[in-house]
């Protein structure tokens, strides 16, 4: 069988995986929506959750697509399409491909034509990320019962505990933005972008609270993110 990373066979595998992911997502979406209605949550609230998330997701989704573009230069389109739709992120897939290429002593500067090299990369990408799939079902019971116990023992501390989890994540990423400041003015660009996003979110919050523009809640995060990205495009040529 003549190998090509862009063969119809590879596209068929990709379509199969994509259908699976869509089916799983649709299954959980419908189930959660129905449960929300049973709990007395309004249709309006549930629909707003869907619309707000869909709008907010568009821009990061395009950046994930950029990952497909990057990987497609040497892996073709179907495998990156699969990997970026399921568990993958460019930050993992690229090192995995590079590590395998280095082990095999080949370059990733052009489309791979050797099926053994291609399959080796596919295996490393797959096995390298398997704990993320295997561990949730194994650890779920322990983590859940721990959370239930925590809430039952002291509900206020339970709430603080949950907030601390989110703040731990946010502070790690906020701190990361400061990593390049010692490299000169260009290293400040991420901080300016962060501040721009924060200011835009602040303006949205003011408009929602003071001007009664409740509908803006749905789009506030998308607006602040997109606005800050446009700001990055404008200031980078000036400062870098």
């Amino acid at each position, binding site marked *: 069988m003549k190998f090509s990373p862009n063969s119809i066979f590879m596209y068929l595998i990709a379509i199969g995986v994509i259908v699976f992911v869509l089916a799983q997502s649709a299954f*959980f*979406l419908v*189930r959660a929506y129905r449960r929300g209605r049973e709990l007395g949550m309004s249709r309006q609230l549930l629909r707003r959750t*869907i619309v707000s998330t869909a709008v907010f997701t*568009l821009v990061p989704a395009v950046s994930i*697509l950029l990952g497909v573009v990057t990987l497609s230069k040497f892996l073709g389109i179907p495998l990156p399409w699969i990997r970026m739709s399921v*568990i993958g992120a460019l930050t993992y897939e690229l090192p995995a491909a590079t590590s395998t290429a280095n082990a095999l002593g080949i370059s990733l500067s052009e489309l791979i034509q050797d099926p053994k090299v291609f399959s080796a990369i596919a295996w490393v990408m797959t096995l390298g990320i398997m704990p993320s799939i295997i561990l949730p079902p194994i650890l779920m019971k322990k983590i859940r019962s721990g959370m239930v116990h925590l809430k039952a023992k002291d509900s206020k501390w339970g709430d603080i505990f949950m907030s601390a989890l989110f703040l731990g994540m946010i502070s790690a990423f*906020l701190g990361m933005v400061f990593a390049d400041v010692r490299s000169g003015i260009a290293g400040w660009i991420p901080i300016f972008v962060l501040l721009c996003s924060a200011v835009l979110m602040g303006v949205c919050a003011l408009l929602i609270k003071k001007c009664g523009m409740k509908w803006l809640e749905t789009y506030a995060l998308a607006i602040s993110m997109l606005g800050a990205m446009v700001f990055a*495009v404008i200031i980078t040529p000036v400062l870098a």
Partner: protein
Amino acid sequence: MSYMEKTDRLGKLWIWTAAVVILLVPVAICLYYQAWPEGTAVLKGLLGVAPIYWTVGAIEVITYTPMLGVGGTYLAFVTGNLTSLKAPSALNAMENADVKPGTEEGEVISTMAIATSSIVTTLVIAAGVVALTAIAPILDSPVLKPAFDNILPALFGGLAVVYVGKNWKLAMAPLIFMVALFLAVPSLASSVGVLVPVGVLIALGAGRILYKKGWL
């Protein structure tokens, strides 16, 4: 059986099926093209990434599961892009809906957000793949590069206003620590995933002290 228990059971069924589907991809490639790679090549490749990504994977499961809820976790760990998309989606949706993580309402909203985000991402990538020849030069253009390079600051700036603003006392200690750490050791930026639980532990420690003193 309660909704949560049933979600757990169904979630396990879906995620184990997903594990099989994901493993079948390289198996199918090897079978169809008669191209089984040498074990040593795979092992060497894995050695370059597995130590760090298996560790990060385990840490992420422990850190994110309480935030995302049962359904959200089973879905988010299959569809990926956890820190850059799924966790912020769930966080933003729960904040907008005024529900708390860990409650059944929080579970509903978090699952809906992660499911919607997964569907939209999958459809955007699929549409992009269809039109890849036309859009690749645009996405790859140097003009747009700063926008995609700065997607995380653009995302977390907005999120921080909402979350840090609401819990500023709790946020101070992990924020100051993280800023100081990254200023001192900039190379850690590539391992930010490992530092999330460090931030969590500091926030928890500070939270416990503030709570005991009655300042929260």
